[in-house]
């Protein structure tokens, strides 16, 4: 078989090699470089997106935390003030009720006292009348004479008054 000499210049062979390299360049670009680059760009975009999402979520969580903490401290204050006002109103109510009760008790006592006095007076009156009548009869019997009831009455009254004193 015929061979080329070790050094031989052939323009068509050179052109063939040149085109071969160019075609391989296009093939490599299309089938290796572009897909890998596209994948890398996609991956970068995905990673960036994920990072952004994570940061957003973290920011949101922090702001939420702040909000809740604020709300929580407010709630405690509110609860404190509520309890305090309740205690105050309860105390005032208590003293009011106590005063009312005292008043009522005093009223009842006074009423009772007045009633008793009245009863006492009534009883005195009845007893006095009884005594007068009894005394009159007894004196009549004793003296065997008619005694003027009116005189008698005066006498006994003064007598009883002396006793009652």
């Amino acid at each position: 078989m015929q061979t080329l000499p070790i050094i031989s210049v052939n323009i068509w062979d050179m052109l063939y090699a040149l085109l071969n390299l160019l075609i391989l360049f296009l093939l490599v670009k299309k089938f290796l470089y572009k897909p890998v680059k596209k994948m890398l760009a996609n991956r970068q975009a995905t990673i960036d997106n994920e990072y952004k999402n994570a940061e957003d979520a973290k920011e949101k969580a922090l702001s939420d935390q702040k909000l809740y903490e604020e709300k929580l401290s407010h709630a405690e204050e509110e609860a404190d003030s509520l309890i305090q006002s309740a205690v105050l109103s309860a105390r005032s109510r208590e003293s009011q009720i106590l005063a009312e009760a005292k008043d009522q008790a005093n009223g009842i006592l006074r009423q009772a006292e007045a009633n008793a006095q009245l009863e006492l007076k009534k009883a005195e009156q009845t007893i006095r009348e009884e005594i007068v009548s009894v005394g009159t009869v007894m004196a009549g019997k004793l003296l065997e004479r008619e005694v003027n009831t009116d005189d008698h009455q005066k006498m006994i009254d003064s007598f009883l008054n002396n006793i009652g004193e």
Partner: protein
Amino acid sequence: MKTSRRFQLLDIFYIIMMILPLAIGMVIQILTKPLSEGITLTGARIFFTIPMPLQDFYITESQINSLLVTVTILFFCLYMVHGLNERVQLKRQHFAELIVQSVDKLVVENMGEYFKGYAPFIIAMLALSAFSSLSSLIGLFPPTSDINVVGGWAILVFILITYYKMKCGPLYYLKSFTEPIALLAPINFLSEFATPISMSFRHYGNILSGTVISTLLAVGLSGLSSMILGWLPGVLGNISWLRVGIPAVLSIYFDVFSGCLQAFIFAMLTMMNVSGAFPMDEYFERKQKKQAKKQLA
């Protein structure tokens, strides 16, 4: 990762298509190489000739082999990119990313941001050059040891260099020859053509020298073997025992190391020359002036 049956079948198809061209090359080699040739040093064998103007177009081993290597690289790329995912699931994806990213970095470092689009070209150049040189490992004729192949690539680089030098207009290009003084114009003109020639000869010479040294070593070891071990009876005496193993050690340097290194050097020189040829400051200055003029008008 669990893959579907179709995915696996496609994978197998890609692997077969990667190996098939090399196997075809080996079969062609076995079928066409005359046995009686012995150890000789020749250029590529011509399979057939296509008559063309100026010169005949020879379809030789280097043309066939470079085509086969191209197909192998194509399917290797397809195999690596197959199953590409944002979340890495296949090991080969790491390799694909490594290639793309490291070459990207290399191009940006050596050529600058403006030439970022050169990355796939550099990948193609590195792959074609390295795979061509390494094809000698499986007994093929390495296309890079043919001056026409490497010369073709160098001409492409020369075209690129000239294109970037012309970017500021042909007048600026012609003026650049007279620097630093007009007297040096012929030398500058010569150095213009020296670039592709030196590039192609460097690459081609390094690969060919590996072949030459391997051949010389094979001849020497054959002679030595028949001298020392020729007394062995019958067939045993005819076998050159010293050619077993010893050439492999040298082949690591001359075929593997040199092949990869020359591919890298060729790519580096391409990057340097192309980016160095572009008068960037001048170009942007002119562009700005043009835009200012447009705005005025």
